[in-house]
């Protein structure tokens, strides 16, 4: 058995997927260069309002409530990718017949999804989740399914909500018979083929053939004598007897969504609405393929329209003079691509942000909040004319917390919390510590903090062993080290005064040292120093400090206190 997913008026469906609020409005899609813009697709409401394909844009604009949208290849390719995801989530054998048509092999899926009717309805629901309203038809051969799916719109009209047809084996001719002759003509034919098909239909129309049942009832020999092999082929199609093998495709795992804006976005708040929509679409697509994502790339095309800059300067957009020079985190500056738009009056740049996640996630709200926090910290600094969002697919994490494991922060929540804290204290000032293989006293770096539930508890040291270990005298560092005035006697510190910190001063009661350390002499940042451990009396208390004498620079510093 085969199923066909067909999206009537595909350009309109792609536009409605990008702007779901237009579902209740008459919508027409036009293309072409001004002033020769022509309507190419309309929805049922627009057709009721008298708009039809072939009209000029100026004619269509006479309809007051009509939503006119320019054809967007980006939106159509996104909708097509969503359809492919929908089909791939049911069957591995999918034929990419056309941009608006997909064929699936349903062999062996009954045990997984239930009866053919259930599968058809599930496909319809999944397509609707992905934002596309599709016709779904199931038949014993691909062509019968294809004709049935195309004919559903013509038979029921758009008023019918659920357009699903299941043709039982042996009933193809009966169920297809009611379909009009137009379903036999492929919408994607162009040039001579289209004219030839049109003349053939006209001939059949003159014969009084109005539907497929009439065509199927014609005698084969007589039809062959008059229309040749083409006529026989059409009759086989009308009877649902023509079969062929599918040409399966393996669609690449690319999850991208884009939207082009008629008017530039100036504020981050409306941008968040659009990002939310794109993120939800990407998340649904990922979920349909049982995937998650660990990396999101946001590319904003910025526009500096001449004469518009002044208007936007005071509009409240966070300005960052070098915002367009922002490089993607963790990528070389060459990763930022700049492009010059063909119009002389428009200078567009691309602003890229990369959101790397520690674990695969699939939560549009979390992604949106993270992107908002990131854009707040790194505003684009110019009006946005195009938004492109892509997600790198990854297998979803399968770790499960145990009943007896200690609690761990929830990864999605933690990521948001870390992003918020990074906004407070700075990006590089929150995370986990990683010690570097060096003897430098500040030999460490910050890295991303990841809380994995499945991470094993260190087993080499039991709690009893940890308790048995004596507490360590810790060093509290002064960052940066405090410059100190040191009184020396016999080349040994006798008194210590830190002008920057009044608490750190007093007579040296006891000292140990000097302990000499040096390193990185082969690099520009070589260091060499003497360390002293001092006990200093400050009033009634005694404090212990690490005093450092920089042998290369000659200064004295209090590096920290033992506490």
């Amino acid at each position, binding site marked *: 058995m085969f199923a066909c997913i067909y999206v009537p008026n595909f350009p309109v469906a792609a536009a409605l997927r990008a702007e779901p609020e237009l579902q209740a409005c008459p919508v027409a899609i036009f293309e072409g260069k001004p002033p020769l813009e022509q309507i190419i697709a309309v929805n049922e409401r627009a057709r009721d309002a008298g708009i039809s394909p072939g009209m000029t844009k100026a004619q269509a604009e006479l309809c007051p409530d009509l939503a006119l949208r320019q054809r967007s290849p980006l939106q159509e390719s996104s909708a097509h990718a969503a359809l492919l995801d929908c089909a791939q989530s049911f069957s591995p054998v999918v034929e990419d017949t056309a941009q608006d048509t997909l064929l699936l092999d349903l062999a062996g899926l009954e045990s997984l999804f239930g009866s053919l009717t259930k599968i058809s309805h599930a496909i319809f629901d999944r397509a609707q989740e992905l934002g596309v309203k599709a016709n779904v038809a199931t038949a014993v051969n691909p062509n019968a399914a294809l004709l049935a799916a195309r004919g559903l719109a013509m038979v029921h009209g758009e008023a019918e909500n659920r357009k699903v047809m299941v043709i039982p084996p042996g009933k193809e001719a009966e169920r297809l018979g009611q379909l009009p002759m137009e379903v036999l003509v492929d919408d994607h034919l162009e040039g001579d083929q289209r004219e030839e098909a049109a003349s053939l239909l006209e001939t059949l129309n003159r014969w009084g053939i109005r539907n497929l049942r009439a065509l199927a009832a014609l005698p084969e020999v007589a039809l062959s004598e008059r229309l040749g092999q083409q006529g026989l082929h059409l009759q086989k199609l009308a009877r649902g007897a023509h079969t062929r093998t599918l040409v399966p495709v393996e669609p690449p795992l690319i999850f991208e969504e884009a939207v082009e804006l008629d008017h530039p976005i100036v504020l981050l708040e409306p941008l968040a609405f659009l990002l939310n929509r794109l993120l939800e679409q990407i998340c649904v697509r990922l979920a349909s393929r049982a995937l998650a994502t660990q990396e999101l790339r946001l590319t904003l095309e910025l526009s500096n329209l001449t004469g518009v800059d002044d208007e936007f300067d005071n509009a409240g957009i966070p300005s960052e003079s070098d915002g367009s020079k922002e490089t993607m985190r963790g990528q070389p500056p060459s990763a930022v691509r700049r492009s010059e738009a063909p119009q002389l009056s428009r200078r567009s740049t691309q602003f890229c942000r990369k959101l790397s996640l520690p674990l695969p996630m699939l939560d549009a709200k979390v992604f949106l909040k993270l992107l908002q926090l990131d854009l707040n910290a790194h505003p684009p600094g110019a009006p946005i004319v195009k938004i492109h969002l892509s997600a790198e697919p990854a297998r979803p994490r399968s770790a499960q917390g145990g009943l007896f494991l200690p609690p761990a922060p929830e990864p999605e929540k933690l990521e948001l919390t870390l992003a918020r804290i990074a906004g407070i204290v700075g990006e590089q000032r929150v995370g986990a510590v990683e010690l570097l293989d060096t003897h430098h006293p500040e030999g460490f770096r910050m890295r991303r903090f990841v809380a994995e539930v499945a991470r094993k508890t260190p087993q080499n040291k039991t709690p009893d062993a940890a308790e048995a270990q004596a507490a360590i005298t810790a060093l509290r560092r002064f960052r*940066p080290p405090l410059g100190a005035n040191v009184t020396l006697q016999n080349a040994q510190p006798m008194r210590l005064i830190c002008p920057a910190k009044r608490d750190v001063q007093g007579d040296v009661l006891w000292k140990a040292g000097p302990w000499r350390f040096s390193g990185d002499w082969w690099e520009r940042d070589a260091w060499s120093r003497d360390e002293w451990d001092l006990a200093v009396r400050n009033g009634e208390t005694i404090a212990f400090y690490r005093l450092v004498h920089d042998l290369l620079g000659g200064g004295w510093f209090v590096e920290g206190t033992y506490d």
Partner: protein
Amino acid sequence: MSSAVVSTSAAPGRPFLFDDESEAEVCSASAESKRPGGKHSPESVAASVFQSAIGNRQSAISLAPASRLEIRPAPEMITSGIPDLDALTGGLPRGCLTEICGPASSGRTSVMLAALASATSRGEYCAVIDASDSLDPHSLAVAGVDLDRLLWVRCGELKGAPSLSPRFLRRQGGGFDFSSPLPLNSQKKESESRCRIASVKDSSRSQRHSEHCLEQVLRATDLLLESGGFGLIILDLADIPPQSARRIPLTTWFRFRRAVEHKPTILLSIEQQPIAGSCSSLLLQLGVLSSQFSVISSNQFSKNPDARDWRPSHAHLFTELKIDAELIRSRLDRKPARSITFDTKTAWAG
């Protein structure tokens, strides 16, 4: 710990009950007493009204004997990583705020690292909100803290703060040494006067910096407490001057206590002086007394600090510190204040 805290009627979850009818009755009785032709004297009427009101209120409020009051379970006590300290306090309570205070070199950070090592060895995730960016990662590693399980929030960054490279240190110039033949007293006076001038200039700046750090600490703490999932959250305010730390409103500490109350999180605050008031369930005071200073060195230092030790300084080694810990207040274990002494060893002491 087997103690339990009995909640009072003002505790959350036990609302007071008021009866509208009793209120109406009181009003009508009082109105009746105002009538000129009333039979009862005003005093007797007032007494009867009061008694009836009390009676009604008693019937309306569900009074329960003390034995039936809700008993809040005792918090789980977790080892601090220092057995002597556990013997004193019973451990660190989960879902409570614990304060550890003391001056510089009193062992606060050692206790903090021991608690971190203990928590991470149990597989818990910990967070340190470091107000003055003073945590030493090498000390963490030596103390046995699992660095993968520790979130370090480094507050207090100032715009344009210099890096810590040796080149910066050289450029900064550092202090200077007084190896000139000036008498020691004059050197001391000169340096103190310089310090005084500098301190007046820097006092307002350092106060602003402290407030900036505190703001970051409080906001980060709020976020982490809200996030949940951490076994131990430490507010390191040890280098914040007490006068600045006391500016944290008491409501903030109440909010923290409330946020952590029903979570398996230990909220630990390290500071110079107690600042959380009654919000902390456990208050420890640490210190190194002068009398205990003599044992910091392995065996070279004389017991009398004034006595001359003619050994060269490089023959000395700083090996251990004796910490005096005093339990100031515990709301979990009502016992008189007492103290203990424990040792902390330096990383190189072996």
